[in-house]
């Protein structure tokens, strides 16, 4: 069993994302710890990729910065190893499938197991292709997190049925990035999912304000924020620890409906 369920024990979950190696490997370690201290319940660590097709401009640029520092998959594992000495917060990788394929599925998931990575989210591995990693990941106790989109419709049934860990509900069409308004009727989708399986549902893509976090927490089990955190890192570089903590603190409170 992975530790992912722990993330949803403490009220509504706040899930934060950052790209490994942006701005540096050491800073990534520091920021992950800071995120945990500020109230993150689960952290998504992005493995940088040359062509992050599902990302908006903010996370694209973050990938560029990380790759400019020559951040490798082995470096990302090193980050996990060091983080694990300080916290047992649930950790999942957000990665395009090619770096994993190239590394070798067996080797990759064995390392995940040994270092304590609890799950993997791969934006280019839909239900039809999850056979690539499903068995190897399961063997190593790593949850393969399924995504459900506003366009999934009747696919929700089969995706939810096989889902592990939690479900990543994509809030709207398009790529990642901060949006001022989310129009999709997410509440209905969450209900559809819960009718199939009792599994936590966390909503991501576009969320950046406490107000949005508070609204979504009314019906979802968690809120995922990436671009807003990465934007802080872009702005503050090596001095982002304090602003990240403040931001996450306010978002976590919003998730639990303690609006300031």
């Amino acid at each position, binding site marked *: 069993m992975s530790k992912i369920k722990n993330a949803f024990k403490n009220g509504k979950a706040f899930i934060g994302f950052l790209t490994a190696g942006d701005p540096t490997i050491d800073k990534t370690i520091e920021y992950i710890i800071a995120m945990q201290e500020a109230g993150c319940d689960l952290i998504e660590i992005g493995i940088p990729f040359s062509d992050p097709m599902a990302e908006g401009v903010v996370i694209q640029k973050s990938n560029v910065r990380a790759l400019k520092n020559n951040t490798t998959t082995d470096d990302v594992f090193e980050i996990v190893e060091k983080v694990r000495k300080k916290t047992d917060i649930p950790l999942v990788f957000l990665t395009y*499938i090619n770096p994993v394929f190239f590394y070798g599925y067996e080797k990759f998931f064995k390392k995940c197991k040994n270092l304590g990575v609890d799950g993997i989210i791969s934006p280019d591995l839909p239900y039809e*292709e999850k056979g690539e990693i499903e068995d190897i990941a399961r063997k190593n106790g790593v949850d393969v997190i399924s995504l459900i989109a506003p366009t999934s419709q009747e696919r929700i049934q089969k995706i939810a049925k096989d889902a592990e860990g939690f479900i990543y509900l994509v809030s709207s069409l398009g790529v990642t990035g901060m949006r001022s308004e989310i129009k999709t009727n997410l509440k209905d989708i969450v209900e559809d999912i819960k009718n199939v399986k009792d599994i936590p549902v966390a909503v991501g893509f576009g969320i950046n304000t406490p107000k949005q976090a508070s609204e979504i927490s009314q019906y979802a089990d968690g809120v995922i924020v990436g671009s807003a955190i990465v934007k802080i890192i872009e702005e503050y570089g090596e001095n982002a620890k304090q602003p990240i903590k403040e931001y996450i603190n306010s978002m976590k409170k919003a998730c639990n409906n303690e609006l300031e």
Partner: protein
Amino acid sequence: MVKLKICGVTRLQDIQLINKYKPDFVGFVFSDSTRKITESESKILKENLDPQIKTVGVFVDHEIDEIISLFRQNIIDIAQLHGSESQEYIDILKDRTNNQLKIIKAIEIKVEEDLNKLDYDCDFILLDSGKGSGKTFPWQLFNRKIKRNFFLAGGINKDNINDAIEKFHPYAVDISSGVEKDGFKDEGLIKEVMERLNLIKGRYGEYGGQYISETLMNELLFLEEEYKKKMADPEFKNELDTLLKEYAGRPSLLYYAKRMTEDLGGAKIYLKREDLNHTGAHKINNVLGQVLLAKKMGKTRVIAETGAGQHGVATATAAALLDMDCEIFMGEVDTERQALNVYKMELLGAKVHSVKSGTKTLKDAVNDAFREWIATLDTTNYVIGSTMGPHPFPMMVRDFQSVISQEIKQQILKKEGKLPNAVLACVGGGSNAMGAFYHFIEDEEVQLIGCEAGGKGIDTPYNAAALTNGKIGIFHGMKSLFNQGDYGQIAEVYSISAGLDYPGVGPEHAYLRDIGRANYVPIDDNEAVNAFEYLSRTEGIIPAIESSHAVAQAIKMAPEMNKDDIIVVCLSGRGDKDVRSIAQYRGVNIDE
């Protein structure tokens, strides 16, 4: 994609099922078996069969005359030989039918050594456990790739068909008793087998697939469904055919390059003149199909990526013609080296986005086009320009481009009375090559040669030769071969040709390479530029720098071949757009 043969049909109601579910091949058994039929029975079955489905006659050491007679009466297209027929026997059949009868030689696999007996010179081999025994042969023997096109037979049914395909990557699976109940073909079982085959659709051996965001999945499924529906709709087909004929100018000429042939002193060289199509390249074949499909699907807008600008111009053209909004994504680097095409697209009413992310070339244009599509899929279709991306794009683009090989085949048979020895085409993503190869895949005697961008040399980092230098990976929605660096980062690639400057290749090419059906060679910048100039001087035809890669290979090969050999070069586009950069390459400044 894996083809299906349903063998041993005996009754008219079987034919009705076949016509309904449309496998690729149907088998008539003429040898001793419970499913044996007579010549007169086969004639009636054939008369009632959908003419698109190919018929295979199954024989065991029959008289050659008997087989030839069935072929001449149009009852069979293919002969499947299950006895001790020799190579000589096969050669006689081939000779007496002017190579028109296709041959499948069946081989029984009982022990591992049997896998060494696969080198018959014929169109296909078929691996079976016995003479239609209905049992699987020992699958565990298979630990090597079979480097040729083969049919897999013996005990295949709905329960093991997916495993069989995953393990063996056959060209086709052959099912008989697996779709029978009480000794007769059964609709439920046929339907189930077709459904299971559909689950592995979009695969070419291990390549292909649909590695794409969940948000796009239903749209891709919808696109595939609509595509299949429309392609089966005579009205749509007719509309498309009319556009190809009246607007694009098809069929394109197959031109005998006499001076080039004489100068090189070897094989006869024919040029398939895709450069004469409207908009000056093969791209229009695919674009008319996809944009018309988008329109019929109720979309109001199309987007596309472009490298050299040819696909962008073609898409903008089709969008203007069919009254659709159009936006084109083009790498910033390419907008500079192909400025003329940018202006053309704008002239045609399209908006051109200069892509500034990543390497600012074709791959980044594809990334941004996908990003745009995922946000606008309600109104918009993404018109992919090559045989790449997630299923159904590689299949759709290949189908739309396959008109090239369909025409070459008819034209060369008319002019020369025989098939060419080799078909040459340049390969970036691989759409003109797939189009030029497709209808020849079944003709094993025709060499298929793809010419990749060797850039400044395949031993340097400056090339785009994914089939020569690439490694298997997953990117842009497909599993295929990609130029990639350590840790699977997609590499920056280089070619003088913007249209070939792509770090991957379509999945079907990767598969054709693996099974040895096509060969791929790198052509460097210098060879391509020389060929560009050579064809201009020798034939008065200025080829696109992309197509010049294929011309260069012809220049290398032709002198080594006999005078009665034939090479067909797919001249995928015209070279006007390249004149400026070739001048630059030669150190001539033509801009003031």
